[in-house]
Structure formats: C-alpha cells, structure tokens
C-alpha cells in the first residue's frame, strides 16, 4: 500500500498521525459510476488529494480532506464506483470491506456519503439501499438535480429523506452547489438516528437468513450489517473476500439457500426482488416527471412506442408490414431463382442421357435443393427488417411491450430474448435461456421456445401461402398473403404464451419475477453491420441447403426411385410415373402411414413429406420437390413446385389434392410440430442431459406433436363443416 497522507488546509499531516476525534471525521464517498461522485470528491477536497492502491489489489485508493470550520477537519475516501455491494468484483469487494471497517490499513468511516444521480434514481437506489442497511451514519448527496430537472424529473428531497431514513442533500457538484449544506449534514450525521433496513422480506426468508446473521454477528459485524450481508450472500456463488475466514458461514449460507428454495423462494434473486420492489415504492413517492420540457427525441418517440394502448398496436402493424414485404419484395427475385433452377434442370437434363444419374441430378438434387433455395430472398428480407429494427433500438422496446404479456402468463421478462431469438432458430434460443436463473422459469421457456416460428418454417409457409392464398388487398393497405403469414407467427407466439401459462401453473409452478432493463436511445443503424448480420443468416441457410437438405434430397430420391416397377408397355407416361412412385419404397411407406394423415385431409405424398421433415422442417418442401420431380411429366411446361401443387389431382378420383383449407391445416401443423432434430438434441442437453433431459425432450416432442395433429384436425374438420372444403 502506498503511504497515504491527509492534508489539512495546506498543512500536510501524515495519515497515521491523524486520529479520529470530535473534530476529525472520516468520510467515505460511494456511488454508481457516472453519478458525478469524483466531481463531488474534487469539489469537496479541492487539490488536497492523494492517490494510491488498496493492499493486494490494483484498485485505486483516492483520499483527500476538507475543512468545514476552523479546527474541524474531514478526511474523505473516494471509494470505487460500483452498482452494488455484491462483492463480485475487486472494486465492490474493496468498497464493502472499507465500509465495514474490514479493509486492512483503512479505518472504518464515521460517515458515509452516498452519491445518487437524480436522473437515474431507480438504478442508483439499489446500492444506496445496501449501504443504508449497514447502519452507519449516512448522508445522501442527490447529485445532478439540474440535469434531472431539465429532463423533467423532479425529486422531492424531503420525501426521499423520509423514505430512506437518512438526510438527502440536493447538489450540483459541477457548479459546487449544495456543498455547504452537504458538509453541514455530514458533520451532524453521527448524532442522528442510524438508518436501517426499510424493505420487508417474506417471513420464510427472515427465518432462513437468521442463522447466517447469527454467524456474522458472532464474527463482529453489527446486527444491521449482518442482516445486509446475509441477504447479499444469497446472491453470490461462494463466501469470499473479507468474510472468507468466518467459521461455519458457508455451511450456514448453503443451509439458508436450501431452506429458501424449499419455501419456493429463488435464493439468488431474493435480494434483487426485495430491493427493486422497495425502490419502486420509494421512487413512486419521491420522484415525479413534470412537463414535456427537456424531453429527448428518444423520450418523445418512446411516449408513442411504449404507450400501453398504441405500443402493442404499432408493434403489430410494423410486423404486418414486415411480413407483407416478404411477399411483395421477394416475389420478383423468387421468380428469378425459380426460373434459374428450371433452366439448370433443363440444361442438365439435355446434357445427360436418360437414366438414373440424370434423374438423380434433375429430380433429386436440383428439384429438392432448388425448391428450398428459392426461399432465400424471403429469409434475407425478414432478417434485413428484424436486423434494422434491432439496430435502431426498437427491439428492446418490443421486449418491454411484451414483458407485460410475459408476466401475465407467469414467464420471466428475460424469457423474451430466447423467445425473440427463436424467430430465427430454436437452437440458439434454447441456449439463450441459460441466462434465466430460476430453473422453473428456464424450463418453461425452453418448453415453449420451438412454438415460435423459426426461419426453417418460412419455406413451408411461403410455399403454401404463395400457392393457395390469393394476393388480395385487405384492410385497404395489407394483402392477404402477408396477413396469413403474420397470423402463423402470431398463432405460434400466442400459443407459446398460453402453453407457458399452463406449465407455470402446473408442472413448473413458481413466482413471477420483475425484469429491470435499460432502453438504449434510438439510433440510425450502420449499414455495414446490418448487411453483415443478414449475410451471416443467408450463409447459414445456404450451408444447410448444401449439406443436410442435399443429403436428404438424395436419399429421398433413391426411396422414390427404387425398386423399379414393371410397367406394361403402352401405359400412358403420366400413369406409368404415378405407378412407379407408388411402387417405390417411399410410396409404400407413404401408403403405410396414409391412415394416420388421412383424417387431416392429406394424401400419402403429404404424409411422406411430413415424415421426412421430422429431421428438419424445410425438408417438407424439398421432399415435395423430389416427389413431384420424380413424378413429373417430362414435357410439363411449368417446373415451379407451386404450379405443380395447384394442379395435383388424385389419380383415382381426379379431384384436386390441395385446397386452401388443406394448406391452412398444414401450416397450422407446422406452427406446432417440433420437427427439428437439432432442437430436440439441444433441449435434451439444456434440461439436464442424460435421462432427465431425454424425458423433457421427449415430453416436448410429444406434446407439440399432439398439439399439431389436434389443431390440424380441428382446422380441417371445422373448415369442411363450414363448407370450405373445395
């Protein structure tokens, strides 16, 4: 440790010779980063400062002094800026140890000054509530009150004093305002009643923490400091730092945690919940937002975007426009890609002699992979829009808007991020659920994440919508295709919330915890970053098409081609191809499972496509491409899968196989069914692995399949009953 010196009004006095007495106060200054704490320290001590390090760590130790009356001197120690006393970083550990008088070579302070930024009262009061509980004479410097006023935030210092149980002095450190009053309050603080715990804990929590408090009191902590420390220790992984040597403390902490969990209280979140609950009440009582003056552009936009009524509506309209643009903007590019694959198929077909190799390349690889690749424009546009909304800062607002609904169904606000990521893919979304501390909340989130429509569903949705939903205008500005796509996304989202509500009230019952989040200011996205994100998504899609989809297309082609059937000479080509397909392994498999899918209105070809897509959803489209490729007439004019689906007829009855009702039922099936081997594998791992994980993954797969089948059945049967069968 560097030797410290206290300087008294121009006369340097070695620190070790300064003895605390009636006229010498030791003051510790603590606060969040960026609260103006150091400015206040400089304003109080002027140039009378010394800088060194705390022993054993590289945390800077800054001390100084000031004189508030002749012979009345205060030494001030500027503690590192910290958001809490959780002691999870060296800075926090040092700050806590100094306040408790447990830092080697640093005497315990006589008075603590907490610097609170009046503009960010909620966030700053977390640390303040911890410090107040230590029971030391405390003064609160309510700093930057001028900036708060300009932003329309008015804090009632008297009310805040009553709420906190410690004097609150408004200051503007940059201009030296309020310093005289602050010094006077510091001088009087030791004579005032000590502050203490203001928040209340559940009775079960008080009981569970009592043995920990007893250990800490035995180790020399004051009862109030012991209470604060006991609560804090519930949120830290291990007893470390200045409390590490206390015998039996770790065991007492472990026992308290078990006891809390047994009572249904999440031990790690107990402190945050209790403090933020109390803070909300304090802010409500002491702070008001006045007028419109000083509002930033972000504030003005948020007034609309985060409005309780307008906000969700705006969110829906924005999403509707995004989904609509997927069709209107992507259509020309999609036609180009489709045309490109048709040309490629024809060119390869013309180059090679008739035989299995030509069929494999044209009907298997080009038809299978090509039918999926034509959806690249849609996926690119979707991610371009989502990336744009995220980079502008809107998605954080969407999380805020959704939090209300999330809490309504018993999900933690943090669940929104996994659920939002699931629009891209369920695999990283399931992994993102790791940030949710409560096991029950985490499992409930994982169980519903695959209900959110991922990008692999886009080819299925857009193939069916593009084929069977007419592009008619609805509501003046929207078209029916975009609205249908939005409806599929909403159906998945609403169902996810509903299912989560069921899980949270049955299998995974638990408390709802509040979410604290900071909304970033709105900004213009950087084009390069945006395009890079889109490119990464597009590359993933392309790689998947070039690996898994390609391999499955080849295998499916083989299943649809072998064994070769003996077709009598003179049989019309169309009939011969159908007979070949029906006699193939795929055809036989399809007919075997046909009774299962028949109640949903599907033929064996749809059944086989569903079956093959259990590995990955978009394989449905590539299977369709392969089946209709193998079964196609060589002279057929249109090679587009959409045209083939629209023209497909039952060879026996001659009736059209597909109808808008069948397409709707299929889409609903794909909204709900968990047809993704990667997701099943990651869920198994993230829910504990081994047999437990396997159980959860199997349960999820089962309930989603049941939901998919039931919903598709209901859509088809109700549609038929209402006369939409044709």
């Amino acid at each position, binding site marked *: 440790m560097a030797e410290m010196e206290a300087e008294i009004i121009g006369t340097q006095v070695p620190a070790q010779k300064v003895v605390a007495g009636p006229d010498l106060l030791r003051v510790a200054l603590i606060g969040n980063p960026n609260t103006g704490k150091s400015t206040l320290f400089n304003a109080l001590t002027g140039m009378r400062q010394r800088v060194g390090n705390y022993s054993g760590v590289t945390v800077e130790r800054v001390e100084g002094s000031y004189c508030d009356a002749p012979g009345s001197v205060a030494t001030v120690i500027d503690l590192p800026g910290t958001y809490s006393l959780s002691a999870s970083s060296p800075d926090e550990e040092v700050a806590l140890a100094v306040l408790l008088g447990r830092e080697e070579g640093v005497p315990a302070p006589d008075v603590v000054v907490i610097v609170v930024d009046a503009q960010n009262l909620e966030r700053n009061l977390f640390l303040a509530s911890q410090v107040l509980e230590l029971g030391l004479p405390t003064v609160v410097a309510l700093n930057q009150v001028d900036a708060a006023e300009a932003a329309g935030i008015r804090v009632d210092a008297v009310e805040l004093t009553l709420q906190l149980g410690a004097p609150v002095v408004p200051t503007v450190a940059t201009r030296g305002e309020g310093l005289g009053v602050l010094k006077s309050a510091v001088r009087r603080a030791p004579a005032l009643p000590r502050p203490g715990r203001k928040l209340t804990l559940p009775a079960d929590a008080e009981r569970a923490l009592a043995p920990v408090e007893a250990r800490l009191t035995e180790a020399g902590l004051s009862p109030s400091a012991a209470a604060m420390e006991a609560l804090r220790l519930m949120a830290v992984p291990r007893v470390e730092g200045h409390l590490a040597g206390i015998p039996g403390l770790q065991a007492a902490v472990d026992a308290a945690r078990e006891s809390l969990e047994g009572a249904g209280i999440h031990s790690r979140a107990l402190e945050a919940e209790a403090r933020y609950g109390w803070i909300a009440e304090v802010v409500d009582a002491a702070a008001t937002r006045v007028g419109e003056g000083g509002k930033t552009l972000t504030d003005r936009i948020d007034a609309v975007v985060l409005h309780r009524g307008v906000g969700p509506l705006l969110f829906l309209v924005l999403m509707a426009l995004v989904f609509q643009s997927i069709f209107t903007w992507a259509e020309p590019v999609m036609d180009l890609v489709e045309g490109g694959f048709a040309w490629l198929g024809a060119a390869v077909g013309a180059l090679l002699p008739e035989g*299995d190799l030509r069929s*494999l390349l044209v009907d298997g690889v080009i038809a299978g992979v090509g039918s999926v690749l034509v959806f690249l424009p849609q996926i690119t546009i979707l991610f371009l829009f989502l990336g744009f909304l995220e980079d502008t800062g809107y998605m954080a607002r969407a999380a805020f808007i959704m939090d209300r609904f999330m809490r309504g169904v018993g999900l933690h606000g943090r669940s929104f991020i996994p659920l939002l990521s699931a629009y*891209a893919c*369920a695999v990283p979304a399931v992994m993102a659920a790791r940030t949710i501390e409560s096991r029950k909340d985490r499992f409930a989130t994982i169980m519903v994440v695959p209900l959110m429509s991922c990008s692999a569903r886009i080819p299925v949705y857009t193939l069916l919508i593009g084929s069977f939903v007419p592009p008619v205008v609805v509501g003046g500005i929207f078209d029916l295709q975009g609205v249908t796509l939005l409806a599929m996304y909403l159906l998945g989202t609403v169902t996810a919330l509903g299912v989560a509500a069921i899980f949270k009230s049955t299998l995974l019952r638990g408390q709802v915890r509040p979410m604290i989040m900071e909304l970033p200011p709105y900004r213009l996205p950087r084009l390069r970053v945006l395009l890079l994100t889109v490119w990464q998504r597009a590359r993933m899609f392309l790689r998947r098409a070039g*690996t898994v989809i390609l*391999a499955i297309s080849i*295998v499916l082609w083989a299943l649809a081609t072998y064994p070769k059937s003996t077709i009598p000479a003179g049989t019309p080509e169309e009939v011969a191809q159908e007979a070949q397909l029906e006699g193939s392994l795929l055809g036989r498999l399809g007919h075997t499972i046909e009774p299962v899918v028949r109640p949903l209105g599907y033929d064996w070809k749809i059944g086989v496509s569903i079956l093959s897509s259990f590995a990955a959803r978009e394989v449905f489209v590539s299977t369709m491409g392969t089946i209709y490729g193998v079964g196609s007439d060589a002279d057929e004019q249109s090679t587009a899968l959409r045209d083939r689906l629209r023209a497909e007829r039952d060879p026996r009855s001659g009736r059209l196989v597909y109808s808008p009702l069948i397409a709707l039922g299929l889409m609903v099936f794909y909204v709900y069914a968990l047809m993704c081997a990667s997701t*099943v594998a*990651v869920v198994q791992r993230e829910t504990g692995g081994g047999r437990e994980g396997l159980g959860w993954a199997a349960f999820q797969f089962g309930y989603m399949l049941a939901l998919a089948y039931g919903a598709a059945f209901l859509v088809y049967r109700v549609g038929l009953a209402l006369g939409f069968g044709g």
Partner: protein
Amino acid sequence: MDAQLVQTLIVGGALSGAALYLGRRALLALGVVKQKGAGGCAGGCGCSSRH
C-alpha cells in the same frame, strides 16, 4: 468401363455419401460422437459457429 456402369457408380457413391453424412449428423445430434471444436452446439439452423 461402359456408361451405364459409370452412372450406377456415381449414383451409388452419392447415395452412400448422403446416407453416411446423415448418419453422422444423427450421431452428433444424439451426442454419441463429438465433433472437434464444436463448442457445444447441436448445429441448428441459426447456429453461427463454424462447424
């Protein structure tokens, strides 16, 4: 070698390759085998790790 045999060999090779690839993916997904540097990802459609 006649053209028919060449075609058969190519088709057979492509089919075996595809089947082997899918089999390996299935084993990876089930955790029966581990991929070098996989970083714990099951390789879903949105995974950005380079495997």
